[in-house]
């Protein structure tokens, strides 16, 4: 059956969040296809770091404001760590 739109959106949003944190917050890129194996707390910790940087509510969850910020056009240099 086709996915219910909500879950499809969720999937897309999760992919957006993961890519964003990899690009700009040093979230490790590993080859495992599924997030759950990474351990939630690393993911949530990185998300909190991003939320703190942008002055958003620090929830560790990809809430509406967080997703809105991640969709904004921006500079490709990471917000933390080295860019060499």
């Amino acid at each position: 059956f086709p996915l219910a739109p909500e879950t499809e959106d969720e999937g897309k949003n999760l992919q957006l969040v993961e890519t964003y944190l990899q690009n700009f917050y040093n979230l490790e890129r590993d080859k495992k296809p599924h997030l759950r194996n990474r351990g939630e707390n690393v993911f949530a910790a990185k998300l909190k770091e991003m939320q703190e940087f942008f002055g958003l509510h620090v929830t560790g969850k990809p809430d509406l404001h967080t997703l809105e910020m991640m969709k904004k056009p921006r500079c490709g240099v990471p917000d933390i760590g080295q860019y060499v």
Partner: protein
Amino acid sequence: FTAGNPKWKKNNLTYRILNYTPKMRQADVDEAIQKALSIWSNVTPLTFRRVEDKDADIVISFAYRDHRDNSPFDGPNGQLAHAFQPGEGIGGDVHLDEEEAWTKYERGYNLFIVVAHELGHSLGLSHSSDPGALMYPAYSYTDPNEFLLPQDDIDGIQAIYGQSNTAVQPTGPVTPQACDPNLTFDAITSLRGEIIFFKGRYMLRKHPSRTETELNFISLFWSNLPSGIQAAYENVERDEVLVFKESKYWVIRGYDIAPGYPKPIHHLGFPKTVKRVNAAYSDETTGKTYFFVADRYWRYDENKKSMDHGYPRKIVSNFGKIGRVDAAFQKDGYVYFFHGTTQFQFDPRTKRIVRQMKSISWFNC
């Protein structure tokens, strides 16, 4: 600051424009880059000299997708550009995503704004969490003609290269903090149930059912409006907000500015001697709008679309000792006057000041 505090060991830097985007005239690209460089040279001892056909400290180029620096671009929107910290080779270089809609205006992505930000990285700055800073990671448009390097960026770059050699040190705008007890406002208006506080190029937005206050650039909603709005009021019946600056005013309908604006304020019936309006509010029940100029006020009839006779009058004669008015708005039958960091709650029925508060009382500090 970038980890490791990289910086150029010399103040006289060179730059080269490697290629151009077909979306802008070359002269406009040159101008945008020169202007972007000047905002950093104006506040530091740094100088930038353009070179052709040979290596330069900062090489600026437009690039497409994977351009062999381990950081491929992602097509339109998303990542607009990136730059490398000071150093040899690719160090200091600025790469701009060729697939973006580069322009010299507010449409698409303004090349000046993006290059100015990337040059911050080229000089050793990393991103700032100050939403008003040029080095804030997310793109936001500011009219290049009105652009002033914010104080946050000046502090950052001067910490690396020192102050400029000019006698008078340049300063820049500071991002307003909602709970700053010294916060004053340029203008305030209601807007479809929310309250909009104008300050410089910013607007603080307060929704009655949300605790936090949202800070945005005015240009985010109305890119054609100037910064430094001086007065504003809402005509609830017409679902319009009128904003004033110097001798002009605009009519806002939602996200749009009504065609044909700005218009001179004298069209509303002010004498030519009036050059600006300090504050305004509109009384929904009576259809009368009150304009405050220095120590006097005018009253405008929204139905007749003309000023009432017998004005101006002294503010003190009708509103008591509220002094000059910086900003005013009406809510739930009361009028709130702002003078510096003081706020007066005025009851137009009894013509009495019923309460005095701090200017930031709306922000749940």
